[in-house]
């Protein structure tokens, strides 16, 4: 296995700070994108179940457009579009926008399913007690939906972390990019890719397991009915 020869590993460990920088960039980008996705997801998820037809339509449009076109295309769109309007954003910021908007559509569906899993009577009861629609959502429905929504939301976080490697395609300095450019200059692809895989695994696997365990618990506590997918 000369592709994984010892001296190549040594070279990688000598340059370990390159991967560490990439990991930092991946973490900050994914973190910010997740916040954006959550904000968009809650907003459009609530709109999707709102009593106003136009709100539901806007939410549907967002989810449909974003879910049926590739993340790569969307990020390229932003990457090449913004300079047309003399907006020069650093690539990680383009990444945060692209990833946030993309996963926001998936989070929207998660939130919508979570809200719809709460019995309709809860909303009616809250409204009858003089809560406004927004208040009913905020104090009655969303706190209950949060429990159901947690496992699929965690899965979205895992997907987002993995997808943040899209930054590598626009020279965004993330973990994947750093490993790729390092191995392009040294030719030592094996150790670099394997190490990067191990890092992603170390982050994503525990999160995915956590989601699975939560899912099990939610299913049990809700009497076996499977909700938000």
């Amino acid at each position, binding site marked *: 296995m000369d592709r994984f020869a010892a001296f190549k590993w040594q070279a990688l460990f000598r340059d370990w700070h390159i991967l560490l920088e990439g990991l930092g960039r991946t973490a900050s980008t994914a973190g910010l994108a997740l916040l954006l996705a959550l904000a968009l997801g809650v907003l459009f998820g609530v709109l999707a179940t709102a009593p106003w037809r136009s709100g539901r339509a806007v939410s549907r449009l967002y989810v449909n457009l974003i879910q049926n076109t*590739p*993340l790569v295309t969307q990020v390229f769109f932003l990457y090449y579009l913004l300079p047309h309007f003399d907006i020069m954003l650093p690539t990680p910021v383009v990444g945060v926008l692209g990833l946030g908007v993309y996963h926001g559509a998936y989070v929207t569906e998660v939130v919508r399913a979570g809200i719809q899993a709460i019995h309709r009577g809860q909303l009616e009861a809250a409204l009858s007690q003089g809560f406004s629609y927004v208040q009913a959502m905020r104090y009655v429905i969303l706190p209950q939906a949060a429990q159901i929504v947690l496992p699929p939301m965690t899965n979205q976080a895992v997907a987002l972390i*993995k997808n943040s490697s899209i930054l590598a395609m626009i020279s965004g300095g993330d973990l994947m990019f750093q490993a790729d450019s390092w*191995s392009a200059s040294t030719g030592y692809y094996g150790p670099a*890719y394997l190490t990067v895989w191990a890092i*992603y*695994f170390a982050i994503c696997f525990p999160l995915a397991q956590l989601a699975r365990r939560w899912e099990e618990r939610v299913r049990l506590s809700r009497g076996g009915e499977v909700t938000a997918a």
Partner: protein
Amino acid sequence: MMEELAVLAQWHNVRFMAEGLLITLRISFFTIVFSFILGTLLGVMRYSGHRLLASLAAVYIESFRASPLILLILLFRFTMPLKPVNSGTLAMTLFTAAIVGEIVRGGLNSVDKGQWEAARSQGFTWWQTMRHIVLPQALRKMIPPLTGQFITVVKDTSYVWVVGVQELTGKGVIILGQHGSTVQFFAIFGMIGLIYYILCLGLNRLGLWQERRMSWLTM
């Protein structure tokens, strides 16, 4: 403005984009077919309860599910003696198979255990029960998540651009380099987006149709 758009409608540009679309379709098709076969195998292995087979499938599924697709595409490109489009398709197939494996396992789990007992008591072997009784019922449960995953496959083909394959998105970016006015920019990306949208919506409809078609199974 019309002149600018006319450039994009020229035959060689249209053909250029069509070539990209064909590559996108080709990668999608092979990935969907092979990952469905491999994923079903993995799902059945993990569900089987056979210690060795189940843990083999589990290791496979978890390690592929936790890795970014770009990483796999790059890894396979540089460690396999294949053309980029083929190593890309292979990477996508192995990646998607892990997810399909989990979908299949979920589908199998959703079939009531009583079905097993009934079939076995009637003299069916394990494999016969799986093939004739359990898998067909599981399949219907699997259609919605499978549809979602196969739509993701079509979209993910754009990742293969990272190893230099000029699929739909890649071709678009090249054309963009040649014809880069703002109007042309929107025309190019609008067209690419529309094509993906139509492909994905088509798959979605196909999934819904299959689901309805198979609904007699659980009536």
